[in-house]
Every structure is written in C-alpha cells, then in structure tokens.
C-alpha cells in the first residue's frame, strides 16, 4: 500500500465494512441518547414527551445507583484480583513439564467454553446450594454448618463464579507470555545466585507485565457488563447487594418498564466505561511502549 492510488483503492474496498460497523454502533447509541431525554414508559403509551435531563437526575440521585456503582467496581476488582493472581500461579504450574500436561491444559481452558448462564446455574444448584450443593456436603461431612452462599455472601459468590469463567482466559494469555521468556535469562539469574522467588520477582513478573495489562484491559471491558450470572442466581438481591449497573438498567427498563430512565442509565454506563477505558489505555500505553 505504498502509492497514493493503492491507498485510495484500499480505502474504497474497506469502506463497506467500516460503514456497516459505524452504523452498527451509531444507530443504537443515538437512539439510546434520544430515548434518554424522553419520558418514555411502556405502561403509559402515548405520553412520550421531551423532559430534558430529568431522567439523568432521577438515575444519578437514586441511592440504588451508588450501590450498583460500588458493586460493579467490587465485582470487576475482585474478579481481576482472583484471575490475575490465580492465572499467574496456574500459568507457572502449567509451564512445568509433567505427565498428562496436554489433558490438564485442556481441562484448565474448558470453563471458558461454558456459557455464563449455564455455568452460573451449575454453580448455583450443584456447588453452592445450601442443601444439595457440593460445598454444603463438604462442610457437613466435616461437621460444619453449611454456608448459604447467595444469602450470606452474595456478591462474593458472584465474583467466584465470574472469576471461575475468566481464569482460563487469564491463564492462557499469561502462559503464552511465560513460554516466551528466554530460558538463558533464567539460567543467567541462576548463576548470579538468584533464588526461585528473586527470579520470579525480578525476571518473570516484569516479563509478564505486558500480558498482565492486556488481561486486565480485556477483562475489565467484559466484566463491567456482567449480567447473566446475576440474573440466574440472585436477581440482584438480596436487596441491592448484587445489583451492578448493567443489572440496574435492566431492572429499570424491563421490570419498571421505564425506557427513558434505562436509556439515561445506559448513557451513564457508557460514560463510566469510557472513563475506565481512558485510564486503562494510558496504563497500557505506558506498559506497551517499553
């Protein structure tokens, strides 16, 4: 694509795809923006009218909003913590040569292929169920009172489920990073008298820092909009304890039929996501430049 002509041709050839993608993004965004300035309740058809920023005012002053914001951050942060630390440890284990390595790697990656609804249901009914669940059975067989996960530790339970789904992704990315570490560097460090811990902190971790930032960025984008896991387990409850922004918007639109308020919530979510993305991109940019 060196000459002017080929570049122009390339633009022309690319334009259908780009235009389609652009429409794909802009139409829903503009419609949401438009709805967010309307009084638009499905229970009162025909009363739609322009009400300015009233929807935003209601959404942002709703105490549920701040709870949901806090829950969203907790959910994202907690899941990132578990998946990044767990992913590093798992990657190190999987990088060791051992018998049956191929099968174990496959098993570790498997959760990623289970759809969120299904995995949440499996966790809810087979693992965390206070009567029939595996955890309850383990607790009882040691003579403890079983934990009623979704009643006592609702948000933590959700975090566990989501982390279980994303751990394979983190492990996979971090494993490839680990495998690209030059073996001679490790040997040089060994000769320099660095023990296993020093080697990890001085060589392995800096080497993986780029991959770790990539994991954080990609996961954050997806974790900001966790929904299915909440819907099939706790329905945002008890109270508002597991309601994140996504779920709050859903509740607004489809439980209270307030399309206008939900649209305002959606726009707020977009703005929040962009703020997060802004900081993440800066963080990544710094890390990727090296």
């Amino acid at each position, binding site marked *: 694509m060196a000459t002017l002509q080929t570049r122009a041709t390339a633009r022309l050839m690319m334009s259908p795809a780009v235009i389609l993608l652009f429409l794909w993004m802009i139409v829903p965004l503009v419609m949401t923006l438009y709805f967010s300035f309307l009084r638009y309740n499905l229970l009162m058809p025909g009363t739609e009218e322009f009400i300015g920023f009233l929807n935003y005012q209601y959404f942002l002053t709703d105490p549920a909003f701040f709870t949901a914001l806090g829950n969203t951050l907790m959910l994202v942060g907690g899941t990132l913590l578990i998946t990044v630390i767990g992913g590093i440890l798992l990657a190190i284990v999987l990088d060791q040569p051992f018998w049956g390595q191929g099968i174990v790697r496959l098993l570790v990656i498997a959760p990623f292929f289970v759809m969120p609804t299904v995995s949440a249901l499996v966790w809810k009914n087979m693992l965390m169920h206070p009567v029939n669940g595996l955890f309850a059975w383990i607790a009882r067989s040691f003579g403890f009172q079983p934990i009623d996960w979704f009643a006592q530790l609702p948000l933590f339970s959700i975090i566990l489920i989501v982390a279980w789904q994303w751990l394979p992704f983190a492990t996979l990315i971090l494993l490839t990073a680990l495998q690209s570490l030059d073996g001679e560097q490790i040997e040089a460090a060994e000769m320099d008298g660095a023990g296993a811990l020093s080697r990890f902190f*001085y060589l392995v971790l800096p080497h993986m820092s780029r991959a770790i930032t990539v994991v954080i960025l990609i996961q954050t984008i997806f974790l900001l909009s966790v929904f299915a896991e909440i819907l099939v387990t706790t329905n945002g409850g008890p109270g508002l304890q597991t309601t994140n922004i996504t779920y709050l918007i859903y509740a607004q639109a489809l439980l209270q039929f307030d399309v206008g308020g939900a649209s305002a919530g959606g726009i707020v979510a977009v703005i929040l996501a962009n703020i997060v993305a802004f900081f993440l991109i800066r963080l990544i940019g710094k890390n990727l430049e090296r």
Partner: protein
Amino acid sequence: MGSITLEKVSKSFGTTAVIPEIDLEVVDGEFVVFVGPSGCGKSTLLRMIAGLEDLSGGRIVIDGKDMSSEAPAKRGLSMVFQSYALYPHMSVYGNIAFPLKMDGQDKAAIDKKVKDAANILNLTNYLDRRPGQLSGGQRQRVAIGRAIVRQPKAFLFDEPLSNLDAALRGNMRLEISDLHHQLKTTMIYVTHDQVEAMTMADKIVVLNAGRIEQVGSPLDLYRSPRNVFVAGFIGSPRMNLIEGQEAAKQNAVTLGVRPEHVRISKTEGAWKGTVGVTEHLGSDTFIHVQVDGVGKITVRTDGDFSTDFGQQVYLTPEPARLHRFDANGQAIPN
C-alpha cells in the same frame, strides 16, 4: 584460584550419548578454548561445568572440591551466554549489579564495584540505558561486566562473539584477551571459530562428537596434529588432505600439507596442475589448483603473485612439513 578438573565426565540425553567420557585438567589462570564442529557437545560440556546441566556420570572438581551436584551459584563461576541473556527490564547498572544484589552486599559496595567494572569495559556512559538501547558489542560488554563483578573463580564463555560482525569480533577478541591478562582468572571459552581459538588460547581442546581429539597449545596443534580431524580443523585455509597413490609413495594412507607449505611456480615443480579460483586478500593470495593424479590443492602465496584461470602451474610441497596419517587417521611420526 580456579582450577577445574573433569574426571570421567559423561552426558546422555535419554538414550543418545552426547559426551561419552571426558577427562580434562584446567590449570588456575589458564585460558582454555573448546573448539569443534557444530553439535559436538561444546555447549553441553560448558553447561555441565556451570551446573546448568546434570552429569550422567563422573565428577567435576573445582579448586579441589567436588562440585558435581552443587547448585550453579555455589560453584563460584560466571558465564557469558551466546545470546548475552541480559535482563531486559533492568538498566545496564541494574544488570551488572544484579549478582551483587543477590549476594546481599550493601549499596555502597555494589555501587563501587559496578562503577569499576563499567570503567574497565568502557560502559560508564551507558549505565542508565536498557539493554534494548545498546549495540551488540555494548551488550556483550554488559554481559562480561555482569560476569566480572562477582570475582568468580573462572569465567565460562559460550560463543560470546558469534553474533557480532567481523570487525567488532576482532576488537572484542583483543578486549577479552586483555581482560584475561588483567584479571588472570581462569577462562573457558567455547567457539567453533578456529581463528578465535588460535589467537586467544593458552590451551586448545579440540572436540569431535563429544570426544577430545587433542589438547595442546595453539602452535602444538598447528605443528603436530595428532590425527586427520585436528589437522583439518586447525589452520585456515584448511590443510590439504591427499589420499591415494601420492600418499602411498610416502607410506601413508592420508597425506597432509598446509597451503602455506606448498611452493608454487610457473616453470618447475613436483606436481603439475591447472589454476582454478584465485582469492586475493591483499596480503596473501589463495590459489586453488587442480593437480593431475592428486586432486584439489589450495596454495597460499604472497599477495603479489598473480595467475590466470586455467593457467599451468607447478607445485612443490615442503618435504619437512608433510603430515602422514595411517588408515585410522592417526598421525605417523616422522
């Protein structure tokens, strides 16, 4: 101090024996070079001495102590890798300081040693840079700096110059030799470049398929190679190896004569041949001559000698400089 003794050292990967059994003595302060063709086990042997590779059999004794199963860091040796293996996230300073830091020395002592090493190696202006921002030769020096700050009993080099261009290689060769004279520490140096071996070594160990073919000073190996392999490996251009009738005349199966020990003349001589390719190096001229009944012979002569392709010439080997080898490739004493 840094004497290293290998006793019946052997190594196999699975069922393939890479090194059958080796005995070797490295005296304190010596510069020993391992040479041999690619895949002959030089790196493996060096890594076994370093402790990065387990022994399959035998003992490694360093300064009188059996170190066969000691961890690499405990052996008191430093290694310079072919890929340099610098730590990319640390500055040059951090790289050189790393072994001292791991040793738990205090900041002031580290600082002094790093600055001293940087001084010796002309790295003072680069201490803040990262390895990625250095040239190949500078990286090489950082790797050497990291090796010398620990004041090891011996240095191990694994083809440290093979990633550098010819001119820089020549420079670094001198620098490493210089360093050896300054520090007087034992050095074991692996290369497959026989020029490096000849110019730097006190003692050359010629390896072939995991076996030691000959050990000796560079001139020893040059003057009296013990077998055909060493004869062909040491010296550049290679020794001419002649088989057949001409060799049989001298009671040998293989007859060897170095290119610099063949006289060439346009008028008279023992062998008659036709000139093939001529390589002019300025100082020398290498002439490849096809000799009837003998084969291809390379001749080294002075830079002013000129011939044309296809010209008739006469060659005369110096009788006193002929090497004779028997059917097993072993040298027959003159």
